C-alpha cells in the first residue's frame, strides 16, 4: 500500500505538468474553437530563446518570464495572421494549419539551434523523501510552479473582468458579442495565455532534462490524453484529466511494464472516448455553439 501511495504521489507530480499544458490547450479551444497542435513547438521555441539568453548571462529565473512572453507572443501572431483570416467555422483548416506550422517551427529550431540535444541549467539541487519517494527539489519546484500557474489562471477567470468576459465568450460567442465583448481581444488573450503557459510547461521540462526539438512530445501526448478525458471545453476537467493521466502512467509503469506506458495511456483515451465522446466532464452534444 505504501508503495502504491508513492507511485500515486509521483504520478501527481508529473501529472501537474500534463494538467498545466492541458489547461493551455483548453483555454485556446474555448476562445477560438481551435485545437492548437503547434502549441508544443511554440513552447519549445520559447525555451530555445531562453537557452540563448541564459548563454548571454541572463539568470535562469529571469529566463522563465522570457519563455512565457516569447511563446505567448508567437501564439498571438499565429491567431492573428493564420487563424483569424480563416473566419469562423473553419475548425478543420485551422487544425491543419497549426499542424503544418508546428512542423515549420521544428525545422526552424533545427536550423537555428541544431538538432542535437542542448543542456539546460538546473534551477535547484538536492532532494527530499516524500511518501518513501526520493524526489528532487527541482521536481517539487516544478510541481509548485505548475500549481501556482493553475491557481493564477483560476483567479483570472473567476475574479477579473477580462476573465469573466473570456468565460462568457467561451460559453456563447453570439451573446458575448451582443453584450459588447470584443471577440478579437478574447482570442488574442487566449492564445497569449495558452501558448505562454505551454512555454512555462516547456521550461519546467527543460530544467529536468536536456532540450531538443522533441522536448514536448511526451508531455503533449499526455496532456491531450488528459484533455480528452476531461473534455475539450472544461478547464477543471482538463486539469483533473492531466492529473489522472499522470497517476495512470505511473501506475502502469510500475505495476505493468515501463515499456507499456504509452500504450496504456492511449488505451485509456480510446476507451473513454468510446464511452463518452465529449470526455468525462465535457459538454454533451452541440450544447455550446
Amino acid at each position: 500500500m505504501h508503495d502504491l501511495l508513492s507511485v500515486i504521489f509521483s504520478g501527481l507530480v508529473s501529472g501537474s505538468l500534463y494538467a498545466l499544458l492541458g489547461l493551455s490547450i483548453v483555454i485556446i479551444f474555448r476562445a477560438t474553437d481551435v485545437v492548437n497542435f503547434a502549441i508544443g513547438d511554440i513552447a519549445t521555441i520559447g525555451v530555445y530563446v531562453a537557452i540563448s539568453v541564459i548563454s548571454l548571462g541572463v539568470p535562469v529565473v529571469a529566463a522563465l518570464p522570457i519563455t512565457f512572453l516569447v511563446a505567448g507572443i508567437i501564439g498571438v501572431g499565429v491567431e492573428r495572421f493564420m487563424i483569424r483570416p480563416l473566419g469562423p467555422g473553419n475548425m478543420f483548416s485551422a487544425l491543419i494549419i497549426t499542424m503544418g506550422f508546428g512542423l515549420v517551427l521544428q525545422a526552424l529550431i533545427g536550423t537555428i539551434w541544431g538538432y542535437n540535444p542542448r543542456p539546460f541549467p538546473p534551477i535547484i539541487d538536492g532532494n527530499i523523501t516524500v511518501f518513501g519517494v526520493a524526489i528532487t527539489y527541482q521536481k517539487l519546484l516544478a510541481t509548485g510552479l505548475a500549481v501556482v500557474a493553475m491557481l493564477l489562471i483560476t483567479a483570472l477567470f473567476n475574479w477579473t473582468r477580462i476573465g469573466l468576459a473570456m468565460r462568457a465568450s467561451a460559453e456563447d460567442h453570439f451573446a458575448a458579442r451582443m453584450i459588447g465583448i470584443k471577440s478579437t481581444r478574447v482570442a488574442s488573450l487566449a492564445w497569449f495565455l495558452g501558448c505562454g503557459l505551454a512555454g512555462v510547461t516547456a521550461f519546467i521540462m527543460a530544467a529536468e532534462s536536456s532540450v531538443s526539438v522533441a522536448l514536448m512530445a511526451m508531455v503533449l501526448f499526455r496532456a491531450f490524453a488528459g484533455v480528452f478525458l476531461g473534455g475539450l471545453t472544461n478547464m477543471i476537467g482538463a486539469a483533473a484529466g492531466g492529473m489522472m493521466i499522470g497517476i495512470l502512467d505511473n501506475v502502469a509503469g510500475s505495476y505493468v511494464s515501463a515499456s507499456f506506458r504509452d500504450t496504456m495511456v492511449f488505451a485509456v483515451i480510446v476507451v473513454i472516448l468510446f464511452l463518452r465522446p465529449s470526455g468525462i466532464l465535457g459538454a454533451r452534444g452541440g450544447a455550446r455553439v
Partner: protein
Amino acid sequence: MTITTGIQDLGLENITHRYNGVLALNHVSLEIEKGSFTAILGPNGAGKSTLALILGGMLRPTNGTVKVKAADRSRSHSGNGFINLGVVLVPEGRRLFTTMNVKENLLLGAYGSGQSKVEMMKSYEDTLEFLPELKRHLNKQAGLLSGGEQQMVAVARALMARPTTIILDEPSLGLAPKMIERIYEVISSLNQRAMTVIVIEQMTTYALQHAQSMIVLEGGMIRYHGSVTDAAAKEALQAGYFGTE
C-alpha cells in the same frame, strides 16, 4: 400613416435581408420614435427575429440603410451591435450565460457600454432595486432558474448597459400568464421612464395592452404600421395572419 412627430431613434430604409438566398425581409422601411412603445407582431417565420437582429446591429442586412439616432450605421460592423449607442437587444431564447451565476450575468451586461468599475456597481444596484425579485437568485446558476426568472435576468442584463432603447424578441414565449404580466409591467415601467421600447411577439394579447404603436410583419413585409387604437389596426389583426393565442 405613421406618427413621426418626435425625434427618430431607430430608422430602417428599404431593408432587404436574405439568408443564403432565402428572403427573410423584403424592402422594409420603418421609423421608431424616441420614447415610444412599439409592438412588432407577426406569425412564425415572418422575419421578426431577423428584424430584431438588424435593429440591434447584430446582423448586417443584405441591402438598405440602418439609422441609429439619425446617423447612418449601415456600414459600421464591429460585431458588437449597437450596444455602445445605447441600443440593447434581449434576443430570442434570451441567450443567458447559463453556466454562470446571475450576478456574473448582470455584470457582463455592462461590458459594452464603457462603464467604469464604480459606474458598473451603481448600475448593478439600480438594476436590483428596479427588479428586486432577482436579489435572492444572485448566486444561482442562471441555467437552473425557471423560464420567467431567466427572462427577468435577460432584461436585467440588458439594463446593466444603461440603454436608451431596448428591443425584446418574444419575451413572453413559453411563460406562464402571471410571469408574462410581470414582464410587461417591467417593460411598461421602463417606457414610462422615457426608454424607447420595441417588443416583438407572435402572441398579440399582452403586447397590445401596453404598446402605443404597432407594426404587423408578414412574409418579410410590413402590412400595417400605426397606432394600436386605429380602426385599421383591428383590421390588420383580423386579417388572419396569426392568432391571438
